[in-house]
């Protein structure tokens, strides 16, 4: 390893270290990160941690929280604690995968639209608008009708419905950065369009986008719940949304049927929002608060 390579590697390590230091300075986002990690761990370890299967019957119907059933049971006697654990998998999968799809589509369309402008931009924006005005459930029903209700179908639908917002954001950022002097400088030394979009502008645009994406995840989770409600969700997987919708009727008698899944969604959403803030701090080498 040459001295130069060693210096470069230590510079990269320094980047990570500095980034972490910035993120760690933000207490709230650290809490969010820990919470998120807990949820991920809970989801991954669900088969190990859950005392019962998610659909397993046999508990007391609408049984209150007890030693055997930490979060109580629903109207069919299914353990809510196990449901929450298994539901974490579904929610996290739906949340991250659908938003991942939406990011892929949104960044591609937004970057091209914002960078090239003109007719390409007009075309891209018209397509984006179509997706923004699509009635969500209508589209979901069509897809379910065509492909049957499945988890991946749900993820696909949610991704299709969410990318437009990302595209608009990305387009705005690219428009704003396209004519900045440092971008012109890159064109002046001969960098190609792809290189400029990916390596000059995108690193600057990504912060806003990551935050928006992180906030889309809880929305995706709730959207999945709504889809489950109308029967377009995958009936073979347990999800918090479905637990909430079935708890609607029993909330007044058995608060635990709604509170625990609801808390899970809220806490996950909050942790994602806090993490999004932390990601911004991590990526952004700017100085602190007061100038």
């Amino acid at each position, binding site marked *: 390893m040459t001295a130069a390579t060693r210096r470069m590697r230590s510079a990269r390590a320094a980047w990570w270290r500095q980034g972490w230091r910035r993120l760690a300075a933000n207490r709230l986002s650290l809490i969010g990160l820990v919470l998120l990690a807990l949820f991920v761990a809970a989801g991954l370890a669900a088969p190990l941690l859950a005392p019962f299967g998610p659909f397993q019957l046999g508990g007391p119907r609408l049984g209150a929280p007890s030693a055997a059933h930490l979060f109580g049971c629903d109207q069919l006697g299914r353990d809510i604690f196990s449901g929450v654990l298994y539901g974490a998998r579904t929610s996290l999968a739906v949340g991250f995968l659908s938003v991942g799809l939406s990011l892929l589509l949104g960044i591609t369309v937004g970057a091209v639209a914002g960078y090239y402008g003109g007719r390409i931009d007009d075309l891209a924006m018209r397509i984006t608008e179509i997706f923004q005005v699509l009635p969500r459930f209508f589209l979901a029903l069509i897809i379910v009708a065509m492909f049957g209700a499945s988890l991946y179908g749900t993820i696909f639908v949610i991704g299709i419905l969410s990318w437009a917002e990302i595209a608009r954001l990305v387009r705005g950022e690219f428009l704003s950065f396209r004519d900045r002097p440092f971008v012109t400088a890159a064109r002046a030394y001969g960098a190609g369009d792809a290189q400029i979009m990916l390596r000059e502008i995108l690193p600057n645009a990504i912060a806003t986008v990551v935050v928006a994406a992180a906030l889309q995840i809880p929305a995706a989770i709730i959207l999945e719940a709504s889809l489950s409600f109308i029967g377009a969700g995958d009936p073979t997987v347990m999800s918090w949304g479905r637990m909430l919708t079935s708890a609607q009727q029993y909330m007044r008698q058995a608060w635990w049927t709604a509170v625990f899944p609801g808390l899970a969604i809220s806490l996950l959403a909050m942790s994602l929002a806090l993490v999004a803030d932390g990601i911004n701090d991590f990526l952004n080498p700017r100085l*602190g608060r*007061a100038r």
Partner: protein
Amino acid sequence: MSAALLAVEDLATSFATDGGTLRAVDGVSFHVDAGEAIGIVGESGSGKSMTALSILRLVPNPGRITRGRISLAGRDLLALSEAAMRGVRRTEIAMIFQDAGAYLNPVMTVGEQIAEAIGPARPRDAAARARILAALSSVQIADPARIARAYPHELSGGMQQRVLIAAALIREPRLILADEPTTALDATVQQQILACLADLRQRTGAALLLISHDLAVVAQICDRLHIMYAGEIVEHGPVREIFAAPKHPYTRALLDAILDPWQPPRALVPLDGAPPDMAAPPPGCRFHPRCPQAMAICARTAPPARSFGDAHAARCWLNEEPVP
């Protein structure tokens, strides 16, 4: 000496930041007499803009005025309530900023914004209209009726600045605070603005406190000059005297850096280094790290002020006899 219109005594404004306390203004004293034009010259970080904002009590968070007295015609401005201070800002002191466009509301016409300056009631009657048109004419706008109906983005930078000046002067303030009013503008437009300001001063008798980094601009319009460096005033005096016989190395460096297009070019002898970090300014004389004539004592002790006749003073150990 007649009672000054504006008297600033030992003003200090600081910012509490993650990196320490930033003393942007650190013991500044000066006065402006009625009808006078005073210039404050300094580069970035000198504290000149913060001085102006402190006078108007518009220091942004987390800054605070930490000591000093600011009196306008005898009234202590720092002791006033916020409501009373708003009154002062509306009627007695006018402020003109750099980048006029940023201070104009893009969704209101120019006429409406000047009407706002007249008073919160935003009168729409004929008398108010006449005042607005008169204000626009007074800043040499040729077609006031058309401009009054225009939106800010339809006007050039120079026109926007003149509109701001018109709005600022419509209440006939006694003091105009202008912070780099011509910096973003072309030379020909700058000339127009300066002529406009001079003309208005003559007609209304208002005093002017002009803040700039451009010595040549200040020299054209001001009677007296204060040179600021790192939060302090290092030299002050009548413009002509300072130009003829500067008594501080920084002033000399600023004068040396002027490139006069009317003179054949000469070699530039630049100043090394950069303005100091105001969270940790150098000990002793703040200018000593960059001073070509720095001595041992300069790094230890801040020099006292010494007068040179007609209200001309500077703080430099080189002026002390015997040179320590």
